[in-house]
């Protein structure tokens, strides 16, 4: 088994505020850019994956692709990590040879976007919505106060997550927010959902991204250096934030990470670059601990000590993340495209020659998780 590679990766020409693009158009522009990045045309694609709405049938048909394999896994912002994992299995099973994975979301402008409301008879509609929940800002954030209480995470340390990521964003011309910020700036921004301030929340933008996944046997056939998929993992915990087993840790993060690291045959010491989906400032803290980079309760001080910012030992969210770069609603694709750029050596805020990059995505808040271990070398050589 030779494994698979990401042979092409690209985003929409611009990310941010794109009222002239429908949701579908964001998918198609991303797809064409990823195909160009890989030196391929639509006729080379025989497998397609994307979230439902618009879904793989619509995206394939719009591009003139007739797939022999498709995946519409839609479990929130991490879905694209799962698509890579499922595509890897499909390619190794011979069900597809070159898979296109697309994301497009008019998260800010809402052009041609799907409805968001949940039915009042759904489990969420009965047991969470009646209590004044208004999207992720009032529910993804719910576990944080328990974590702060139990592990002594301070408001200043939480704020510093946004400060550290802004330092990366300052190096990225495509980032929506690039001006330096301080802890005081974060704590002075308005409270959105205590204990979270505006600058501790992700952006809401328009944009898209796409990937081309194929067999590692074809590494070298494409214009850009191959990025090897060394390990993958996925898991889910609960669709209701109130029903997480322990508000101080994510079971799904931990299980997805464990599977991906085991498959890749790596430990945290092997990781040179890291992307953790940062919908809110506490998520990188939960992610660092779930993946085992630091012990429980240590991630806040670890970030506040500068370890994850430019010049630190563990470069984290080097595009600026969902809090400073872009966040369409399903940000996972952008975490992957940044990891690909870093492994290729073409990122705006390039770190020194990363051999291995890890991507952790969350979906439906803490409901689901996906993890990818990406490398410059194939699996047998990466772990040597």
């Amino acid at each position, binding site marked *: 088994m030779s494994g698979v590679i990401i042979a092409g990766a690209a985003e929409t020409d611009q990310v941010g505020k794109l009222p002239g693009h429908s949701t579908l158009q964001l998918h198609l522009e991303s797809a064409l850019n990823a195909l160009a990045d890989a030196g391929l045309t639509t006729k080379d694609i025989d497998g397609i994956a994307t979230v439902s709405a618009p879904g793989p049938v619509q995206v394939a048909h719009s591009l003139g692709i007739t797939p022999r394999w498709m995946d519409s896994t839609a479990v929130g912002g991490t879905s694209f990590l799962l698509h890579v994992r499922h595509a890897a299995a499909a390619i190794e099973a011979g069900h597809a040879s070159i898979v296109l994975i697309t994301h497009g979301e008019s998260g800010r402008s809402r052009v041609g976007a799907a409805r968001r409301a949940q039915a*009042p008879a759904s489990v969420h509609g009965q047991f969470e919505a009646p209590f004044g929940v208004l999207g992720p800002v009032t529910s993804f954030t719910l576990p944080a106060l328990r974590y702060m209480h139990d592990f002594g995470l301070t408001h200043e340390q939480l704020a510093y997550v946004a400060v550290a990521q802004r330092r990366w964003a300052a190096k990225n011309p495509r980032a929506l927010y690039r001006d330096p910020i301080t802890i005081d700036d974060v704590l002075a921004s308005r409270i959105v959902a205590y204990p979270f301030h505006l600058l501790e929340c992700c952006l809401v933008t328009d944009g898209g991204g796409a990937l081309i996944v194929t067999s590692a046997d074809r590494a070298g056939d494409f214009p850009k250096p191959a990025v090897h998929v060394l390990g993958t993992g996925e898991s889910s915990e609960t669709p209701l934030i109130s029903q997480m087993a322990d508000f101080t840790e994510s079971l799904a993060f931990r299980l997805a990470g464990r599977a991906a690291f085991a498959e890749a045959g790596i430990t945290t010491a092997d990781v040179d670059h890291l992307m953790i989906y940062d919908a809110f400032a506490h998520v990188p803290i939960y992610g660092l601990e779930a993946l085992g980079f630091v012990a429980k309760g240590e991630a806040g001080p670890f970030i506040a000590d500068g370890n994850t910012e430019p010049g630190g030992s563990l470069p984290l969210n080097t595009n600026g993340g969902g809090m400073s770069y872009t966040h369409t609603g399903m940000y996972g694709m952008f975490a992957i495209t940044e990891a690909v750029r870093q492994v290729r050596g073409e990122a705006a805020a390039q770190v020194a020659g990363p051999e291995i990059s890890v991507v952790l995505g969350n979906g439906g808040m803490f409901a689901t998780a996906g993890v990818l271990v990406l490398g410059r070398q194939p699996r047998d050589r990466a772990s040597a």
Partner: protein
Amino acid sequence: MAEKAVPVPTPETQPFWDGCAAGELRIQHCLDCGEAYFYPRPVCPACGSADVEWFTASGAATLYSYVISHRPAPGFEDEAPYAIAVVELAEGPRMMTNLTGVPNTPEHLVLDMPLRVTFERRGDVSLPLFAPAGEST
């Protein structure tokens, strides 16, 4: 002003909502392994047994975590900022709720504080809310 979201019971959740209407917090437990659980469903999440039954919980709980929302959901415009809380019932399960009979401020909402269920009518159902234990409900 928009109306607050009103839950629509389903057959497997109806006994919970019937309990709320009667002023009782009725949840389920497993007759095989003893696990008490919430939200309502026909299978024990701990052991997979379908041998489960409804019982009336004590209504005692503690404050597990919360946020204080400054951006009101429809119908909550006059209450913002208001707490969206998760409480841990004395029997073990946790549930989302709102907190009444106490100012919804960080100073007044201390994690692990004892709470007691109370019920508020909304549309065709009654919702379980929680107030500091010892206060009149």
